[in-house]
């Protein structure tokens, strides 16, 4: 006897509705891009994206994992915003040797055509020359270091120096000619030890070829991306970022689910908007262990403070469409671990 329907009822969907999100679109970046595509104002914070989190409000010390304080969260809402990949600052030595954290031997500041400045490596038969920038790093993670180099003899930079990552010296893994004697050299390595030094070193035994360098870049991961110049902290990215300059008031990044954790005592993050967002705002949070919380009709002025634990937060100066509401609900529930 037939006890189950042998044909699907006409009310059961057999194809996705035309307003359903495309498969794979339920990620933070895709949803954020859609929300702010018409110039809406607001902010979007994604604690699972470590490239947007810094331990200090100046944005010089990246958060590399859970259990670290958050002094700066970058806003992902601006369509013009570029995600910061380069972990170093003053990457073109525009302040000369003052921008070299650790140096020795025959290194001097110099001009470098097309860049704010550079570092010249001379040669001495007896001394080692080195120019390092510094960055914290998380052991066991891959990092890629790269730099622009121009040999004084105009030749290929295939000898005469080493790249230093975590204080360990390596030969470049790739040497790419960009034209007119300008090269970019790169190396990927897995972090170990505690040395924060990244840069170039030239030992006497490496020969007499001298060169100039600039454009230091250190990024998480094993894939080198396009060079991202960074001047002073906070000089490179627009957006309505969330700050906390006071150490005792900084929340922590925690995991399972990954979230921003406020201590409920004095932790708070502050965002300043160029103008009031008005009274028709939507504030959506992914509440850890609970799920999506979408508050509509909110009034947001020029400042917004938050002390509510969240796995993601979006502020936008309009109401959401039903599809946006459904998408954010699904995403934020997933991020919250429910």
């Amino acid at each position, binding site marked *: 006897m037939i006890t189950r329907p042998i044909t699907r009822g006409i009310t059961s969907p057999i194809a996705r509705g035309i307003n359903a999100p495309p498969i794979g679109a339920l990620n933070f970046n895709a949803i954020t891009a859609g929300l702010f595509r018409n110039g809406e104002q607001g902010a979007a914070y994604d604690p699972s994206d470590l490239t947007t989190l810094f331990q200090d409000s100046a944005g010089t010390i990246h958060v590399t994992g859970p259990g670290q304080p958050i002094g700066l969260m970058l806003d992902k809402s601006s369509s013009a915003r570029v995600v910061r990949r380069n972990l170093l600052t003053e990457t073109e030595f525009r302040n000369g040797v003052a921008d070299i954290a650790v140096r020795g031997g025959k290194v001097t500041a110099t001009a470098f055509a097309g860049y704010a400045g550079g570092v010249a490596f001379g040669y001495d038969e007896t001394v080692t020359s080195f120019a390092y920038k510094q960055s914290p790093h*998380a052991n066991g993670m891959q990092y890629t270091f790269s730099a622009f180099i121009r040999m004084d003899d105009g030749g290929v930079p295939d000898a005469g120096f080493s790249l230093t990552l975590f204080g360990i010296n390596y030969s470049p893994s790739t040497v790419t000619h960009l034209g007119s004697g300008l090269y970019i050299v790169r190396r990927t390595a897995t972090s170990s030890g505690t040395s924060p030094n990244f840069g170039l070193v030239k030992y006497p035994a490496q020969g007499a070829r001298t060169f100039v360098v600039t454009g230091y870049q250190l990024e998480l991961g094993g894939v080198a991306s396009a060079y991202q110049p960074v001047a002073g902290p906070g000089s490179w990215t627009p957006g309505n970022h969330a700050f906390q300059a*006071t*150490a*005792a008031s*900084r929340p922590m990044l925690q995991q399972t689910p990954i979230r921003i954790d406020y*201590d*409920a*005592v004095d*932790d708070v993050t502050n965002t300043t908007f160029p103008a009031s967002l008005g009274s028709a705002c939507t504030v959506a949070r992914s509440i850890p262990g609970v799920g999506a919380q979408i508050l509509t009709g909110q009034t947001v002025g020029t400042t917004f403070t938050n002390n509510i634990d969240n796995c993601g937060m979006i502020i936008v100066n309009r109401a959401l469409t039903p599809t946006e509401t459904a998408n954010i609900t699904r995403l934020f529930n997933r991020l919250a671990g429910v």
Partner: protein
Amino acid sequence: MGHYSLSVVQLCPDQFRDAANSIAEASGYGPGNLSVELRHADGSVWWGCHAWWIPAVFSAQTQLPEEAPQEWHDALAEVVSSVRDGGDPLLHWHEALTGNGLSVYAPEDDA
């Protein structure tokens, strides 16, 4: 890098708050760390904060430079610290307040 595993509650009488905050700011911890207004059982005003610390860093915060003003030395002597390894910061906060005869100030209390 060390782990921020030390839960530290710091409490300070009102008259030493500015100096204590100056010490923290001069040490690179930003302005206004002692930010939560408190009331002592005797009615006096206190201020407090909670922060997570790397244990080795907190242990090192014991000496002021010789040239520090006397008010900084005086303030440091008056700051009460409660230190725990991990745990719930809010619970630690409440227990530290209770243990020192303090409570969070609520403006309606003056009404």
